[in-house]
Structure formats: C-alpha cells, structure tokens
C-alpha cells in the first residue's frame, strides 16, 4: 500500500484503523450540525432514540438560517421546536440573524484541521477549506452521529486538483470552481474526495477557499479538503485560536485521478440555467437582461466578496430595472463590512439588505423572483424553481464581480470590461 490521502488519514485516525479507499469504517465524528430545514426530522429521530446529549467529541449545533427570520407561522413553529430542543439537550443554537451555517460554524471555533464533521446540509463540504473532512448527510445520519458519536463511512478515492498560475483581473475562486465543475459534470466526482493543491491555491484566502470547497458537492463529491498553510493558521488566529499544523497527504498517496488547471487561462464564468455544470464564459452570455441580482450565500456572502463588490460599485448605482439583494453570510461579516465602509457603498449603490442567512437562495423568502425573471446570483444552485418560483425563471450563477457588474448594466456583463 502506498501513502495516504487526507481523507484516508482522517478516517484512519477517527476509526483507529489502517483504512484505504473503498473500505467501510465506523469513525468517531468530531462535530455535527443541522439547519432549520433539516432539524425537525433529526429531532424526531433523536427523540425516538431517547437522546439526551450529543456524543460527538466537540458537540453539536443547530442553525436557523434557511428561513430566517421566519416568513410564516408554520416556519415559526418549527423554529420554536428547534429552540426548545437546543435548550433541553444543551445543543448550541445559532438563532435567526447570526448567519449561514457554513459561516457561523467555522466562526464558532468548534471545528479544527484534521476533524471529521457531518451536517444535515449538502454544503457542509465547505469546511474542507479549513483542512478537514466534512460532508453533508440527511437528518437520520446526523441523528445517528449525534446519538452514538460515530457514523459509518465508505473511505473515498481522491482526485487531486492542481491549479497552477494565477488568475487575472476580476477573476477569482468562483470562476475557478465553476471551470472545474464544467469540466467534471454534475456527477463527475461522485463519492470522491477532492484535494486542492498548486500555486494558485496558495494565494487564495480563506473566503475563496470556502467558495471552492462549498461547491465540490455540485460535482457529487464527498469531501473537499485543502492543505494546511499560513492562510489556515492566520484565519484561525483571526478567530482567536492558535493552530500550528494540520493533516497532510503523503508524498506517495494514491490518487484515482489528477486534474490540472492553469488559472491564467480561466476567465469569468456563469453556470447557465438550469444546471450547475452548464458552465459558459460570461462573454458568451453578455447582454442577457437581468431583473434580480443576488450577492450572498454560503458560497459568496463573505467579507472579501462584499468588498470586491463594493469596489466595483463605488460611486455608482445599480440599473433601475434590477433588484439588487444583499445577504451577508454572518452578523460578524456584516459588522466588519460596515466598519470597512464597504457596506455603506453597497447600500448607496441601491442594495436591498436582508438579514444575515441564506437569503433568497432556496426560495423560502426574502426575494422570490417574478414570473419570467432572469436572476444573476452568487449562490451555488440554479435548478428550476430553486428560488421559489418555477414559472419561466432563469438563474445564472457567477462571481460577486460578475453579479454586480451585471446589476450595474441591467444585463449580464463581463466585469473585466467595466
């Protein structure tokens, strides 16, 4: 047997076995979480099991973010049940307005490099940016992890994605990950772990790494771990934690596939309706009318996203036909964006501000498009009906730079041309 990948190391360690890709292991889970759309089923399962306290090593959280603040009495009742559960079982609660689970969980300091984390939300893979293995699961799996402190896993094969060179102006992590998804397809990495390496990766900050790890599930992947480096250590330092090292793949680790991308060849991209892998150059979609633009989500609602957008919008106003909705990924990010002045710029440009959280991404509230609308969004999914209306609505996914450039012009616009 050769050396081990990050996934093989984390799962070997947590299962106290010497496992390799293809093995089935029962592994100790460090942390688990659920959100307001998945907690109700999880709580029912846990109550069925007679749950009292989470047995996962670092505990458990529930986050109210998908319909937050609540748009209806039905959702309010579900939120109420989740609050009661969190109190009774001493589960950490992130209530409405704190932000998107995939930002507030990292900010909470509960997950660390080398950890094994599961969440009842498919974009739980976001935490791979922090040099750990995390994945999305259903409510029953997360209930089982909370109840037993463990879960069964099939050890995934790993694809190594080497991104060399450096991206050009107003091109960034979203364009890189959309490029990769376009190459791989919606099931091109099903069950795999994706390790990101290369010169371009080293220069990408934590916000951008989270953007990329967030979207590995859009090609079917299970984990999306990044290497531990100064960016990781500095990010932990920024939340008051000193962490000096993480988990590394061995030099002789066995990869099922290696993919090379030269970042200097990558241009601004959009995922056109109604598939995330329907990836095209922004230049090929230029001129398509836009009715709504959305800046936010667990993919691109972080401080560097808001700042990149503000830089382009400074002193300008979005097009009169465009509703420009902004939802910061967390309250902490909102506060930082206010302090930096970026948030003032967004508001002065015409932004409609909604509470930190998922915003209109999943169609529950805060910006459901009208019949026939074209939406350009920094989110991660563009399926028919995704934003709550299935009447001829088209959703285009793009970077913060492309979204605000398009909001300014009222049609899809390559941000490099502004």
């Amino acid at each position, binding site marked *: 047997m050769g050396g081990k990948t990050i996934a093989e190391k984390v799962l070997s360690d947590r299962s106290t076995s010497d496992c390799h890709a293809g093995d*089935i292991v*029962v592994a100790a889970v460090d942390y688990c979480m659920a959100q*307001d*759309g*998945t907690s*109700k*089923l999880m709580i029912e*399962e846990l109550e*069925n*099991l007679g749950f009292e306290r989470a047995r996962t090593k670092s505990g458990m959280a529930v986050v109210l973010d*998908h*319909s937050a603040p609540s748009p*209806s009495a*039905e*959702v309010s009742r*579900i939120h109420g049940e989740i609050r009661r559960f969190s109190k009774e079982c001493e589960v950490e609660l992130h209530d409405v307005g704190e932000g998107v689970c995939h930002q507030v969980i990292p900010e909470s300091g509960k997950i660390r490099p080398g950890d094994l984390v599961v969440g*009842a*939300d*498919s974009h*739980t893979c976001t935490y791979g940016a922090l040099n750990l293995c995390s994945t*999305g*699961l*259903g*409510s*029953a*799996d997360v*209930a*089982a992890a909370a*109840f*037993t402190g*463990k*879960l*069964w896993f099939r050890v995934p094969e790993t694809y190594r994605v080497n991104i060399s060179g450096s991206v050009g102006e107003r091109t960034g992590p979203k364009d890189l990950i959309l490029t990769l998804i376009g190459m791989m397809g*919606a*099931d091109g990495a*099903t*069950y795999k772990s994706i390790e990101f390496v290369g010169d371009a990766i080293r220069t990408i900050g934590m916000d951008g790494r989270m953007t990329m790890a967030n979207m590995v*599930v859009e090609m*079917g992947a*299970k984990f999306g771990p990044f290497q531990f480096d100064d960016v990781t250590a500095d990010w932990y330092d920024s939340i008051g934690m000193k962490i000096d090292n993480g988990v590394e793949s061995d030099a002789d680790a066995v990869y099922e596939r290696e993919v090379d991308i030269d970042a200097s060849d990558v241009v601004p991209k959009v995922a056109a309706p109604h*598939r995330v892998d329907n990836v095209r150059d922004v230049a090929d979609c230029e001129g398509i009318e836009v009715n709504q633009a959305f800046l936010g989500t667990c993919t691109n609602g972080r401080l560097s996203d808001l700042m990149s957008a503000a830089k382009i919008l400074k002193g300008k106003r979005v097009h009169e036909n465009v509703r420009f909705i902004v939802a910061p990924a967390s309250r902490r990010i909102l506060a930082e964006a206010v302090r930096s002045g970026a948030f003032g710029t967004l508001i002065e440009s015409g932004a409609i501000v909604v509470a930190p959280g998922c915003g209109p991404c*999943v*169609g*529950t509230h805060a910006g459901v498009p009208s019949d026939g609308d074209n939406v350009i969004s920094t989110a991660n*999914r563009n*399926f*028919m*009906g*995704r934003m*709550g209306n*299935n009447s001829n609505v088209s959703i285009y996914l793009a970077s913060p730079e492309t979204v605000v450039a398009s909001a300014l012009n009222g049609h899809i616009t390559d941000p490099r041309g502004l």
Partner: protein
Amino acid sequence: MASTRLEGRAHRFEPNDDINTDYIISGRYKFKIGDMQELAKHVMEDIDPDFAQKVDSGDFIVAGRNFGCGSSREQAPRALKAAGVAAIIARSYARIFYRNSFNIGLPLITCETDWIEDGERLAIDLGNGKVIGLDGGGNAEFSPLPLTMRILLEDGGLIPHIKKHGGFSLERGEV
C-alpha cells in the same frame, strides 16, 4: 429478503439525468410542511405537476444518471415513499440521496434503464438481482446491494438499526 419481489408501474421524467432533490420536493414546501403525506402531494411537481395524482402505491421511479443530486433533504426519499413509491431504478445516484434512501427504508436499484418505457409494468426480483419488463419483455440485471445497505434495509432503516443494536452493527456475515 432473498424471495422479495416487487411489482409496479414505471414513471419516467424529463430530464432523465440529474433529477435533483429540489425537483423531487421543492424548498418552497419542505421548509414549512412537516407531514410527509402533505409533502407527498407536491412530490416531483416541478418536472411533472400531475405525478402525485398518477402514482399508485407500489410504483417505481425510473431515471438515468445521478438521481437525487443537490440538497441533503431527507424529505426527498421520505416524500417519495409517502407517495407510494416502492423503489427507484436508475443508472446511478448522488451520494447523500443514496444513503438517505436506505436510511429510511427505500430500496435503490442500479442498472441500465434506457429500455424501460414510461408506464410500463415491471417486476423487481431483489434476491436474484433482476428487473423484468412485464409488458415488453426487456430486462436488466443488477449486482446485489452492498452488505451495509442490506443490513440497514433488513433492520428497517438506520434509526431502527441503531435502536436494535445500541449502535452500529455492520460487520455481520450474510443477511
């Protein structure tokens, strides 16, 4: 398990590949409706508004590649099951949906599906790994379910499994 035979009608959709969990049950319902029988009235609605009326108890969903991609919502297999769907037959599945389905006791069959017509009556022979067309005469073979999945199905799903064994018991011999 070895003798289990299911019979029902096939339901196909457009698109055939990458049918995501938003299409199975939309976010505009699943965040506010907790009752699976209520959710079942909206299952597959965004790609086939009449599906909930057409489906009979015991029927099958038939699809191409990557069925169930997208969100982790366990409401997707649960609402299908509540609508009467007895099994899904597809060329491949997304990872989270695959686990969720076995966790809640809905079997997934992986085989070639191009030969199956919408509305065709099918039999699934779980023990011998065969899908048989009862109207046309086509058929396909499938590999036995992985041991982990057979154990979970046999125990009635993941939570009943945990309850029964007080934890995970996935290393048994034959099930």
